[in-house]
């Protein structure tokens, strides 16, 4: 398909092609192998890596210099604007004697182009016209073209969609990379089991490949020990399935790292010993910070008008306030935290702490450190001196743990 678009070397092709599809549907891989196997002159750039337009343009020129003349030392080129780029680009093409071939510039993760200067994307789209050379720009992205289109209008590229791999495709692809020690069928059966467990949650080819590699040694274990032969799929399945499920809850979510997982497999230990990342949710806070955080939470989720009822009548009884809050909770929690002024926070703090709190510098600095810890966030930066406003960003569960 692409080949037909590219046409012959000498022919002018589409000025720009836009290829999109979901994560790991093979866009980059297909482009790379295509260009490499056909030995087409090309430049391959990742837009995330070259995060400014200047870096991006310079990188393209550098690669262009080196792509045909390996022997020559690439000198550093300065290129600040697109105008310079077009000029230098023409020079480069002439000097490398590429006039008679189509040059391909592939921009991976092209969605980053939108964040750069406004002229970059439209200019790349009509590079052929601007430089008057035989060049094709290929954009690779995960999002659809409609989200790219700048409001000033631009040259429409030829769009091409890469569909997601189906389960069959995934299986074929995964099975192809079988380890040399084992037969294809054996590995294919393993992949089949793996997909059965993971296909529901993950269709990312890279991730699946990674998981397959991680868990394969466990799958082979009975065979190595001689308890089962390679054809004994059912036995192997029984052995591996709970293991894979465990993996889904831990490694896949990156609760524990893959190297820890491997060590675990080797030692045959229980993953219970290794607590995952989310097991350590408890945060120790100083005494007054806890109260500050609770006060902030109350201020964020309770409407102002209820303050009087909650904090004056039942002076200093935090349990009561929590209890009474229940009937309003549903709506307020769906709406998210509301900003509140500093005064209100302190007033609530004074009423929920049993003994008197002196408004010392330490209390105020604790508020700021809570902001740096991202437990509170400051809203509106314009009048920080007069009356700063904050928002409480922690969840109910967290506040429950703190209040305990």
């Amino acid at each position, binding site marked *: 398909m692409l080949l037909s678009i590219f046409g012959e070397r000498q022919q002018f092709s589409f000025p720009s092609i836009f290829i999109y599809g979901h994560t790991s549907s093979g866009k980059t891989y297909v482009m790379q192998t295509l260009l490499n196997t056909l030995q087409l002159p090309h430049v391959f750039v990742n837009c995330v890596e070259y995060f400014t337009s200047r870096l991006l343009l310079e990188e393209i020129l550098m690669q262009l210099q080196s792509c045909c003349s390996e022997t020559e030392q690439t000198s550093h080129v300065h290129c600040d604007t697109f105008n310079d780029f077009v000029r230098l680009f023409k020079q480069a093409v002439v000097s490398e004697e590429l006039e008679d071939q189509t040059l391909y510039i592939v921009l991976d993760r092209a969605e980053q182009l939108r964040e750069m200067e406004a002229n970059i994307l439209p200019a790349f789209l009509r590079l052929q016209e601007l430089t008057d050379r035989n060049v094709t720009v290929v954009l690779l992205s995960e999002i659809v073209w409609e989200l790219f289109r700048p409001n000033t209008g631009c040259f429409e590229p030829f769009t091409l969609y890469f569909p997601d791999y189906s389960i069959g495709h995934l299986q074929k692809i995964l099975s192809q990379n079988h380890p040399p020690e084992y037969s294809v069928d054996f590995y294919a059966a393993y992949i089949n089991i793996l997909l059965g467990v993971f296909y529901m949650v993950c269709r990312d080819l*890279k991730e699946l490949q990674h998981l397959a590699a991680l868990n394969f040694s466990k799958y082979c274990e009975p065979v190595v020990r001689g308890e089962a032969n390679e054809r004994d799929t059912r036995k192997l399945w029984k052995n591996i399935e709970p293991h894979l499920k465990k993996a889904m809850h831990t490694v896949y979510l990156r609760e524990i*790292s893959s190297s820890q997982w491997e060590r675990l497999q080797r030692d045959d230990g229980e993953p219970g010993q290794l607590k995952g990342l989310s097991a350590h949710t408890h945060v120790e806070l*100083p005494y007054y910070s806890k109260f500050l955080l609770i006060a902030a939470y109350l201020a964020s989720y309770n409407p102002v008008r209820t303050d009087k009822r909650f904090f004056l009548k039942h002076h200093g009884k935090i349990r009561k306030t929590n209890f009474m809050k229940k009937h309003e909770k549903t709506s307020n929690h769906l709406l998210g935290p509301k900003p509140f002024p500093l005064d209100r926070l302190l007033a609530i703090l004074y009423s929920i702490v049993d003994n008197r709190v002196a408004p010392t510098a330490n209390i105020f600095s604790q508020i700021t450190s809570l902001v740096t810890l991202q437990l509170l966030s400051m809203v509106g930066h314009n009048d920080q001196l007069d009356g700063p406003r904050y928002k409480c960003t922690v969840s109910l569960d967290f506040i429950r743990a703190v209040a305990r």
Partner: protein
Amino acid sequence: MWQSCGLVFFPIKHGLNVCSHLDLSEMFTGQIQEDLNKQLFDNLVSFLRRSHSEFQEKTTEWTCRMKSKEIPTAALVLGVNVTDHDLTFRSLSEVLQNNITPYIAFLEAKDCPGVKKLMQKLMGQLMNCYVDVDSSEDEDYVQVSHNRIRCSMTSLINWYESVTKKTDSETPSKKRTSSSRHWQSPPVVVVFKDMESFSTKVLQDFIVISSQHIHELPLVLIFGIATSPMIIHSLLPHSVSSLLCIELFQSLSCKDHLSTIIDKLLLRASFPFKLGEKVLQVLINIFLYHDFSVQNFVKGFQLCIVEHFCSQPVSVLCCQLVDAKKRADSLSHDQCENIRKLPSFRRYVESQVSEKQIALLTEDTYLKETTQKLLEDLHVYHENYLSVLRCLHVFTSFLPKYPLGKQIRELHCACLENQVWETEEYESSLQLARMLNKSDLVTMLQQCVEIFVSSSGKEFDNTVEKLKEFLTQFQKLEGGCKTDLYHLQKLKESRRYKKLTKFEMLRFDVVDYIDSLVRNYLVPANHKTLHEIAYFNTASVLREHLNAAPRIALHTALNNPYRYLKNQELKSDEGSISNKAPDICIVYKLHLECGRLINLVDWLEAFSTVVMAAEGPNADAASSDQVDDIIHARFIRAVSELELLGFIKPSKQKTDHVARLTWGGC
């Protein structure tokens, strides 16, 4: 600052003494810190080695080919005491430089608003640390690279390659030294000091970029996390966090850290300086209630030392016992007088017979002798106190609900405060101790024996004997029980009772013995003569310095200007408004009487009446209908000063009003 203080108030020798104490405590805390973090650092180092070795081997095995290459990442959970982190990171970088790699970069969120800035910072730091390692001869290289830092990963990789190649081509001797410490291609460690504050986008981009080059550049990330590791998941989407190979490292909790410091620093007989109960309480409260910062605790402790040596004249004698005796011998007459003025010494004098009283109060030489003796007593008291305190702590820490506190510091405070055996908590803990089971009692006794044996006090030989005797008795009891069970299948009720009572008797004995120890040795320090020499007790000073209350200070300054200005004219009774006070004070007092919105005209009028009251009735008559321009100007200035201090702000609701930003009257 403290050095000069010492020199002003005391002989030079003593200034140096202060200085050495400060050094001492600093050294201690540094040492302790290192010990505490050792475990953590060891784990980290081994992690880094592991992650590195994979890179080194470059295996072409099937599994390695298949696995997507992840960036090894250490999530370092450090606790919320952000102020202490710097110290930890500093020692971490030292450890890493010595053991793993010279290439370490520390990134802070405030320096990295974008990927570009991050890369700049990263490369700058990496290339500088290269200079550190290979000294001056390579400077020309560094200069070249500094001239054109192209902040991209490619240039970073180029740099890395050139650096590692260089190490290879070095002279053999040098190579050996470097390879003994680092490997051929040491990993590049990037530390994100405050993970929470980094913006999501910057982190994501950086991770995506570096994951593409992980094959060429052995990168290791360290996330410094203050809250909980969940923050990684909330900051990074799955597509990004799947590029990382995260392992968790937890540092010691700051409370444990504090306990160790107190244990090593305060509860040591050899350290002459002690904290009084109130002071210690202030320091601990600041720690627990406010910041969890061990560093601040240590700083507070240092402040105490400085305060003590600057404000207490008799602190000359606060040093090691041998020195203190020498110094006591060479005291001047004034210094002797100072000692006589001490309340604890007066109490001591009063308890003596009358001839001795006279001798103590008039003869300097006799006083010096007594002082030496008393100092020795004090020293012995300290040694005994600490051993018995630890012993009592062994007991109380076994009790359910910890009536005397779980930590030794709480027990220490209770003992310093007053006679601990008179408190209810002590009574209840004794009650509980009488109900302990045998195995607990035995282990406790064994621990106590260890404590006493290792203690430096000389009086504990008998105690050790006694405790050992208890232990043997328990063992005998056990033996008796066994034979009984062995020989007689059924025990009669009466016999069983007898057995139990035997055990109970012994238990009572043990508890009573411990009680007697406590009564003997855990006398509060302020009952001891000359305790002022070693103990720092003025908690109010410390509170003023460490727990500043800006609002209250401002309020007193404006409400009661005499307090700071010390002008006799300003001395007035509370409540009334004196016209002699500065304008701003008058305006402030007037504004306290108003509600949320203040009418400027009314305020001005009130102000002018107060000011005019001084000038007498004739002046009053002259300007009754119209306010003087000068007074008007003074008023406006005072009001704008108040606005600057943040008490009022212009209101949009009513044009001629200002809004109060504070609430409440005086």
